[in-house]
């Protein structure tokens, strides 16, 4: 319990640190949160779309994962408002407990990234960002062939179509490198912190679309193919 509290405190410390990094700017511009470097480059620099290959790979080669795409606006190569849409799915079976777990649902994220490099208009970027995310999903959980250990009657362990939802926030850092023309490749590491969740009377869910396996917080990574429009 004490360890969990320490970890929780560390998580908040990390998020506050990230927020400080995000808002850090030259002394002359510290009065405003949202600032842009003063130069001759226009503010609106276009859009970018991206696809995460890690989640897609997990979905293709594993029993759970997600397809996730993002739409990002480029403001002066410095600030990047982002909308991310995904579809998470799990169809898992545990060999030991023999429990089968199924869920599939879309999820939504909205947030902003900031390019932390001094040279904002170069081909590569170093990001720090924040996201707010939400999903509404249903779960089916079964354990076929369960027998009561004392009376030896057959037990019908079946949780079907239970409605659940979860809200969480993400703090991320990442890199984005220009490969050729409009094509960029990038990765980022995200710490996900559960803010609120609603589950049925049956207990807690295991895999949450977009969040991953359910816990108070977790670390994830994405590898993105990005196309500038």
């Amino acid at each position: 319990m004490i360890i969990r509290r320490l970890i929780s405190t560390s998580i908040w410390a990390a998020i506050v640190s990230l927020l400080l990094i995000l808002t850090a700017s030259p002394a002359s511009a510290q009065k405003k949160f949202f600032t842009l470097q003063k130069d001759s480059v226009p503010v609106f620099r276009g859009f970018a779309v991206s696809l995460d290959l890690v989640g897609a790979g997990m979905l293709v080669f594993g029993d759970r994962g997600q397809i996730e795409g993002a739409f990002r606006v480029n403001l002066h190569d410095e600030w990047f408002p982002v909308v991310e849409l995904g579809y998470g799915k799990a169809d898992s079976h545990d060999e030991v407990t023999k429990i089968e777990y199924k869920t599939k649902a879309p999820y939504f994220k909205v947030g902003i990234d900031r390019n932390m490099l001094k040279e904002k208009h170069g081909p590569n970027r170093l990001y720090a960002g924040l996201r707010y995310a939400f999903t509404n999903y249903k779960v089916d959980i079964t354990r076929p062939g369960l027998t009561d250990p004392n009376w030896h009657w057959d037990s019908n362990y079946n949780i079907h179509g239970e409605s659940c939802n979860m809200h969480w926030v993400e703090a991320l850092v990442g890199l984005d490198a220009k490969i050729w023309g409009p094509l960029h490749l990038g990765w980022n590491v995200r710490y996900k912190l559960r803010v609120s969740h609603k589950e049925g009377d049956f207990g807690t869910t295991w895999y949450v679309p977009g969040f991953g396996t359910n816990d108070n917080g977790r670390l994830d990574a994405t590898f993105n193919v990005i196309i500038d429009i």
Partner: protein
Amino acid sequence: MRKWLLFLCVALVVSCSSIECPVDNMVVAVYEFCDEDGNPVTLEDTLTVSTKLRNGQDSVVLNKAVGVAGFSLPVSQDHPVDEFYFNFFGKDYDVTDTVWIEKEDIPHFESIECKATFFHQLKSVSYTEHILDSLAIKKAFVDYDYKTTHINIYLGGDR
């Protein structure tokens, strides 16, 4: 750059994510003996509790308990009524009462890695009254909590 390295180090430290199955994962109903005023009392008789299995055989679930103030019994996973035979063996008597526990069974899930369990909502208790005076539900929800009394047993009758 140093700032970023520091942040990454903190992120790695806090990234330890685990799903823990509960250590105390037995789901049992706790019974406690009471006098007519509801105060806890100790049973002076020898108590044996048995039940009937699916194949019709009797199975002892509490064996020759002496001088106990309470005990715990298993709850069937997915069966509407549990039937127990309470045998009280005293100095000059050997009497058995039958107890029926009616309940609703609720599948409980923690993680795909934790064993499937059921929690229970006790609905009613009925019984014969040879030695038992009455039984009353004190806490209706049966879960991993094995420290709280679920059913009070009031003794009386032919002792």
